């Protein structure tokens, strides 16, 4: 005998209550799925965001602060690396290029980064998405998501972030956008990149070149006209050089680190949060399954006579068992599948929010871990579905027929 018509009939008979049970399972599943999916998306996005920055040399202090300021372009102050260290870094033979970073200005709220052509071409893997790299002090390159177009001209405002831009001071220099970077998946997608010499000049600092040299662009810098910088991005010649340079510049006057070191700390925190949240979600799921089974037991008491009549008409006990078991499993499985979809949607929306707040592009996905979580929930439901199924299987026919439905 096919139990499906009976299962569908039971589902239809109490459709509101059954729908509520499905929604409960769905929310419990979605919670766990969204947490796992979001953690993976954050890890992948942050790793992608720092991928092009091999080694960072900065003043001693918090490497997290330097990473947030230099790589994630967050407003805030960090200690400046002394000019003599900048000189040493630039002069190092094992360096393919060393690009100083300078901040302090913005264009319509987007950060302005002062650096060299070397770093621009490195970020673009040698080929800009549009246009070319800057070739004089009045040219700029913008990130993929910048509203500025190639050919646009603009002026920079002093300060970056709400605390620094309250004065509304606009610098005199005008820039022309000459190129656009490919997507970085990081806050650099909104950045406006100008020659570092311009940032120094606009802030009345030595420009890295003697005044009589004119508007020279990039290295070699004149030692006598170098200034302190928040950080330097260093591209070592090879892996051995990277470790050698990291060691060389970990001194009392500077620190050197791979951005991955900061991410490892972030991942540990994320992992701890994920473990805690997943434990909470697992507890919720267990409670939901228990609630579903309790509801089903109560519900089946109401339909006890109906199944007794079926048995009196000749339906075998196994048929009744299969009907009840399938009925509960259908509720749990439907809720779990809907939970996977809702969890992905939740993770996607959370990703959009994180991207709007930080500029880090997240790509949430549903992986094996999330599917496993839903599968465990369904498996648990399958086991606990035996409780009401066995109860009706063992029900005494004479007593069941006497109940009022």
């Amino acid at each position, binding site marked *: 005998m096919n139990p499906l018509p009976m299962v569908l009939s039971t589902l239809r008979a109490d459709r509101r209550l059954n729908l509520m049970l499905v929604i409960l399972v769905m929310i419990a599943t979605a919670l766990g799925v969204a947490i796992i999916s979001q953690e*993976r998306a954050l*890890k*992948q996005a942050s*790793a992608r965001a720092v991928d092009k920055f091999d080694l960072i040399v900065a003043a001693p202090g918090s490497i997290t602060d330097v990473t947030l300021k230099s790589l994630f372009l967050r407003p805030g102050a960090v200690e400046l690396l002394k000019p003599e260290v900048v000189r040493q870094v630039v002069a190092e033979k094992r360096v393919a290029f060393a690009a100083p970073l300078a901040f302090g200005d913005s264009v319509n709220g987007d950060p302005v980064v002062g650096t060299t052509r070397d770093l621009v071409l490195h970020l673009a893997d040698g080929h800009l998405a549009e246009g070319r790299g800057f070739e004089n002090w009045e040219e700029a390159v913008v990130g993929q998501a910048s509203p500025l177009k190639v050919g646009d001209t603009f002026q920079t405002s002093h300060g970056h972030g709400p605390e620094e831009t309250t004065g509304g001071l606009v610098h005199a220099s005008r820039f022309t956008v000459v190129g656009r970077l490919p997507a970085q998946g990081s806050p650099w997608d909104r950045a406006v990149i100008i020659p570092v010499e311009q940032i120094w000049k606009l802030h009345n600092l030595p420009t890295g070149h003697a005044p009589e040299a004119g508007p020279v662009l990039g290295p070699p810098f004149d030692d006598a006209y170098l200034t302190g910088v928040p950080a330097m991005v260093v591209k070592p010649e090879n*892996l*051995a050089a*990277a*470790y*050698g340079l*990291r*060691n*060389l510049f*970990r001194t009392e006057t500077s620190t050197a*680190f*791979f951005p*991955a*070191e900061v*991410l*490892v700390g972030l*991942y*540990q925190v994320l992992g701890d949060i994920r473990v805690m949240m997943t434990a909470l979600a697992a507890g919720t799921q267990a409670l939901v399954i228990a609630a579903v089974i309790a509801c089903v037991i109560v519900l089946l008491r109401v339909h006890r006579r109906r199944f007794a009549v079926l048995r009196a008409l000749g339906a075998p006990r196994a048929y009744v068992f299969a009907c009840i078991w399938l009925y509960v499993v259908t509720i749990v499985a439907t809720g779990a599948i809907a939970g996977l979809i809702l969890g992905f949607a939740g993770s996607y929306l959370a990703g959009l929010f994180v991207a709007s707040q930080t500029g880090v592009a997240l790509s949430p996905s549903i992986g094996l871990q999330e599917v496993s979580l839903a599968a465990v929930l369904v498996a648990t439901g399958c086991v606990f579905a035996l409780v009401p199924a066995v109860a009706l299987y063992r029900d005494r026919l004479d007593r069941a027929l006497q109940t009022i439905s």
Partner: protein
Amino acid sequence: MRVRQLLGSMICAVMFYASNAMAEDHESHVAAMGDIRVVHPWARAADAGGSTLVFMDIENAGGPVRLTRVRTDVAERAELVGIVMEGTELTTAAVGAIDVPVGEVQLDPGGLAIKLDGLSQELAVGDGIEMVLSFEPGGELTVHSEVEPADAREHSHAGHSHD
């Protein structure tokens, strides 16, 4: 008088054992050969058959040398590696030899390390392992590494100095 002598003897005995213990403690944290000094070597706890990373500070008061080879009885292979990130996972890449310029080289969880593969025994927190480091020029130096928790980021005695 006798009580005073007895007390004096007891204090001397305690001081003797305490200084001995401190010397042993100091010895386990520092190993030296000529101008080369290895401070705070430590390894992460791991299961038998697995692998672990060993970290240390190598100080060099003489001319530049290279750490070329490591051997130990507790692992099938010992390799000089750099810690690199692949995707979102940390992994290691062989670096051949490690230059030890005048000054100091740190083998730490963010940079260089010695990787021990195929551990012949479980490394539990508090255990110690012997390793022989080969420097060129210089020779061989035996160091005693303490085992710290598997997720440790630094030696549990980090922060104090050894003169």
